[in-house]
């Protein structure tokens, strides 16, 4: 028991210290900080699961580091001062790491992947506490700790133990490092803990990409083996479905706009009155649409669209597809057996408790389906061909959208509507903000872009020596990632069928301006052409030269930053403070407001009245992945970003101030 007490007190000391350091407002602008930070890093990593780190792709690593630094930057300055001393302390105190070990026994995730992290697989779970606590243990000065612990009464001690236990629980939270493939094929790596919903992650991505935050943005998963795709719902926990992936999975998480995500709330008549003629539906008044949504989603129970029709069912283990009359009810999908009446003899085909609904891709080829408009119902755990997967095929894409949406309504009910309202609120807030900032706008943004480009060059690993600004330094710490040869991203991968050719050309050209909507282009000073060339040659997308992030201009009018200070320590957001900024800016660039509609990607032309197709930018994704298979997710050995950011505005403001400082 004494041992445990000691362990806890140590642990607690560390945590207290960490908390204190987070609270420090002012920063010592020491010039030496950059070097000591390096030390800090090596220290932090020393205790970590090294194998898993090694297998991180270099650019992943960079992105991840940038991410982590965002969290750490607040604390690091505090830590720096104590670093040298800590190193010694650590050597002298061999039992310090003990508590974390104890922790790890709680932490080991149920998945067995932890045992062999060096297999080079896509998924690696590492006990988190194992890594993150030790990484902070160095800063804990034993002399701080000892006197206080000796003096406290048993009561206080037990209180602290309790506190530690709570933190233990916290540490038990599973975290994954997820690689999210952007619309343009670039990718972002971020840490997701199991309490975070897809909504949280989306918000996080919004902040990182400075996209327009409209309600269509969604995260989705693809399963290349089964040729499936599914948009995650905003209320889902992201970690859960990802945990079902196999270790050698080639599944991906995509960040894209999916118009069908909330289409039912935008045009409910197309779903609830789908039998009516097209013209009536098109002329539907807004008031009537609202009424429909109200009727079906705001009552005591959610009303599922009244769907019935012939679908083709893939027979088990056979190659044939048999037509059957299917009906959707709130309780499941039913079919009418041959020669039986529709009202009384319905046979349950599937209920939704244990299955998710997926879009099937190119099943005409793969399974000889009558059409390519297929959807699939399966348990989320199932990742490979199996008799427990149910395949259905519709006549056209609209029927497919109807059914999939209907199933989602039946399965998720009210949450779907709640999600939509949340998304709307978010989108409105953002657009209001953007409008405001565009008015103040302008010229200085060019200069900031250039600076960013420079910074990104450094961050990319071209300048491994400690750069002059401590902040920019942070991103560079890990082994410099060799830039991928440009050729790798350029040609669309043959296996990807979606509109490959226009894509390749856009990719090759210095295409930044085209990715902005004309209106944006007139307002902003676009990055100079050389920059965009830079873009195409320096392939790791995360480090592409940044155009000004959308909200940028608004901040340029803010009072200039006082000095070249490292980020204020009070920022404990998951957001990257300035230093990693360069790394993220390019993404802004690539996911501008009018980004190519994602439905292009997986629905083809079937969406009613599709807007003129913007340059599709999806293809490179796969080619990047293929040439250098990147692990879509990993557990990092580092502390996860605190979920659910903080004040977005102030964060942005701070980021801008930093940027100015860097110039």
């Amino acid at each position, binding site marked *: 028991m004494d041992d445990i007490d000691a362990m806890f007190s140590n642990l607690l000391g560390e945590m207290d210290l960490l908390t204190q350091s987070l609270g420090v407002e002012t920063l010592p602008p020491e010039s030496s900080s950059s070097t000591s930070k390096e030390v800090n890093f090596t220290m932090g990593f020393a205790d970590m699961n090294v194998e898993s780190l090694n297998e991180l792709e270099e650019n992943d690593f960079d992105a991840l580091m940038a991410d982590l630094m965002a969290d750490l930057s607040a604390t690091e300055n505090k830590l720096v001062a104590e670093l040298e001393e800590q190193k010694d302390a650590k050597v002298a105190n061999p039992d310090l790491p003990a508590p974390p070990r104890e922790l790890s026994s709680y932490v080991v995730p149920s998945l067995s992947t932890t045992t062999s992290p060096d297999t080079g697989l896509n998924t690696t779970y590492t006990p988190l506490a194992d890594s993150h606590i030790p990484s902070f243990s160095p800063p804990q000065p034993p002399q701080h700790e000892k006197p206080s612990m000796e003096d406290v009464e048993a009561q206080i001690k037990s209180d602290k*133990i309790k506190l530690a236990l709570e933190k233990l629980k916290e540490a038990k939270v599973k975290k994954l490092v997820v690689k999210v493939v952007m619309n343009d094929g670039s990718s972002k790596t971020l840490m997701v803990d199991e309490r975070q919903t897809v909504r949280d992650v989306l918000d996080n991505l919004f902040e990182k990409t400075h996209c327009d935050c409209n309600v269509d943005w969604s995260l989705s998963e693809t399963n290349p083996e089964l040729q499936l795709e599914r948009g995650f719902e905003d209320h889902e926990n992201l970690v859960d479905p990802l945990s079902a992936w196999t270790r050698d999975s080639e599944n991906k998480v995509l960040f894209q706009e999916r118009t069908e995500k909330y289409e039912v709330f935008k045009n409910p008549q197309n779903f609830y009155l789908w039998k009516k003629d097209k013209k009536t539906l098109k002329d539907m008044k807004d008031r009537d649409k609202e009424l429909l949504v109200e009727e079906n989603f705001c009552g*005591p129970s959610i009303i599922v669209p*009244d769907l019935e029709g012939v679908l083709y069912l893939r027979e088990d283990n056979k190659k044939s597809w048999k037509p059957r009359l299917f009906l959707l009810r709130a309780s*499941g999908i039913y079919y009418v057996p041959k020669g039986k009446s529709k009202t009384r003899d319905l046979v*349950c085909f599937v209920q939704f408790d244990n299955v998710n609904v997926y879009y099937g891709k190119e099943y005409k080829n793969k399974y000889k389906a009558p059409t390519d408009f297929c959807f699939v119902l399966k348990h989320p755990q199932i990742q490979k061909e199996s008799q427990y997967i149910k395949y259905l095929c519709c006549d056209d894409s609209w029927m497919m959208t109807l059914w999939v949406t209907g199933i989602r309504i039946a399965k998720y009910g009210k949450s779907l509507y709640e999600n939509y309202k949340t998304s709307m609120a978010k989108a409105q807030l953002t657009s209001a903000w953007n409008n405001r900032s565009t008015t103040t706008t302008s010229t200085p943004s060019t200069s900031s872009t250039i600076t960013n480009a420079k910074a990104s060059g450094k961050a990319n690993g071209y300048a491994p020596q400690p750069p002059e600004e401590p902040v920019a330094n942070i991103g560079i710490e890990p082994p410099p990632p060799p830039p991928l040869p440009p050729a790798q991203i350029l040609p669309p991968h043959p296996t990807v069928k979606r509109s490959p050719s226009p894509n390749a050309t856009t990719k090759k050209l210095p295409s930044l301006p085209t990715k902005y909507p004309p209106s944006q282009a007139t307002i902003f000073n676009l990055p100079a052409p050389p920059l965009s060339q830079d873009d195409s040659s320096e392939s790791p997308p995360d480090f592409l030269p940044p155009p000004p992030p959308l909200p940028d201009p608004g901040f340029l009018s803010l009072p200039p930053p006082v000095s070249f200070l490292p980020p204020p320590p009070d920022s404990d957001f998951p957001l990257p403070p300035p230093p990693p900024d360069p790394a993220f800016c390019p993404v802004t660039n690539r996911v501008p407001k009018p980004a190519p509609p994602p439905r292009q990607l997986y629905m083809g032309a079937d969406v009613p009245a599709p807007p003129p197709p913007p340059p599709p930018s999806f293809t490179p994704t796969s080619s990047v992945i293929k040439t250098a298979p990147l692990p879509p997710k990993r557990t990092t050995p580092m502390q996860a970003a605190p979920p659910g950011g903080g004040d977005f505005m102030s964060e942005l403001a701070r980021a801008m101030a930093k940027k100015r400082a860097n110039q």
Partner: protein
Amino acid sequence: MAVWDLSVTLEDLGAEAPPITVSVTSDLHIGGVILKLVEKSQVRRDWSDHALWWEQKQQWLLRPSWTLEKCGIHADARLIFMPQHKALKLGLPNGLTIRVRACFSGSVFRTVLGICKMLSESRPQTELSLLRPVEEKKKKKDKDLSEEVYDLTDVPLTSVSRPCLYNGMPAHFADSPKTEKVYKMLSVPQPAPAPEAIAKLYRPASIVDKAHIHSRWLDSSRSLMQQGVQENDRLWLRFKYYCFHDMEPKYDAVRLTQLYEQARWAILLEDIDCTEEEMMLFGGLQYHINKLSLSEPQAMTSTPAMDDLDSALQCLEVKLDVGGSSPQDLLDNLTAPELNDYLKIFRPKRLTLKGYKQYWFKFKDDSISYYKSKEESLGEPIQQINLKGCEVAPDVNVAGQKFCIRLLIPAPEGMNEVYLRCENEEQYSRWMAACRLASKGKSLADTSFQSEIQSIRSFLAMQQTNPSTNSSQTDDNINTHSLVSPRYSKKYKTKQLAPKILDAYQNVAQLSLTDALLRFLQIWQALPDFGLSFVVVRFKGSRKDEVLGIAPNRLIRIDLGVGDVVKTWRYNNMRQWNVNWDIRQVAIEFDGNVNIAFCCVTADCKIVHEFIGGYIFMSTRSREQSDTLNEELFHKLTGGHEAL
């Protein structure tokens, strides 16, 4: 002015008593007639509720200041002087009968409001109405013997708009133990009926039968007396409009319970179609609701305010608990309880007949591990099976002493089928409960573990007993056949039915009584045919009868033969509707110059008119103005020519 004799029957003197004759002049007002009448009768009593009823014209003379001339009364008029409020037997949605004093002189709309005010503490609602009951074919005698009538005629009619609560019930119920019992009957769901009783009741066999039921609604703009309802007649009180405005479970115990009862009977009597899966879920919910309403009747009668306080206190306690517990407790919480036992496992594989093999099983958190023997349980398990997200099904034969748990465990390659065989009921209940919890991602530490075990046991017991020997119900043993409609009763034996209902029950077993009622209603309301009232009509220009379905938000035209929906019109596209009372035809105009017209075959067109007007009225009620009921508007929308 000429004086003439007017003879008035005084009902209170009895039917045999001769009419009293008063001499009147044509300019005497009604009040004066009554005054003379009372003086002449020489009966001293409170006459304030009495009024004159004109028999030939079937109308009340309710305006004391109108003169006889103005009313058009001559010497040949047969008038009856009688109370406006009389006893009425009401068949409630829960199947029980209650005697109340109802107003026979006001419109049925007001009468219903008055009844509701007395029965329930909720704000005035218009969704209920009265209809004439379906004639019972059985002899009256045996019915009368068995039927218990709850008498509420002594309860004074309050004029208070919101009766205050006393002891969790409207004050007038708290007067005597007798009335308290009535309140309990109203606010607590009734136990499941015997399956034989369900089978005996009238069930609509076709859509036309269903349409006939709706021909029985009383006209809400005329009085009971005008519609030929006599004292002590029996009427049904039912939810007529499927639009339940402003339901607040805390304050609407009676309303919620009665609505549940109506929904339950609609399902049991196959008034609304549902699939087998839905029926089993309804069955599971009924089972749960029965159990709860038998075991905790107190919970229902506690006042809402107390509920709030209780929950707040509980919440606080929980918080304090967490705050005050010792570190050891917290540590304990981190280490969940386990189950350990020898069980037999069997994995069906293609072409193998390998039987069950015995291993030492350990259940911890949400996974099962098994070992060669107990001694080896400290080492590495042979296999560990995570049950989260898996499907659990019973494979039990009590008579054959077979207690197996069938698990379908999801894996990347598909679902793995695993059977666990337990030795006895006891073991089975525990492991089954654990598997069920784990499949939902809960651990054994979850509070529901014990209750889960309990319910599995009681369902096992259900399969043990022979239904024929056990038709009488005990408190905790409910015949599963009384939870489903006769269709499914016939289809399945008890042995087959019980596991199906248990399966559905598992998903709702954690709900509180109110939540279970609400869930039941939710599923009911999500049925595709929910809210449809049918009328057989003949569309203009059509040669055959068709069915008009009237829903809260739309009208649908249904093919009588096939039952398919032909066309749907939504109210919010409706421009106007008219009733030609002479040719009894309803004509409706929708946006886009869509005009329809039909005559009603099974019901009076006033009923259809009232349904449409009523639903449109409901849609005008918003949450904010819920306290004031715009009666005038309702009357305008539903009244027909009486309203003009």
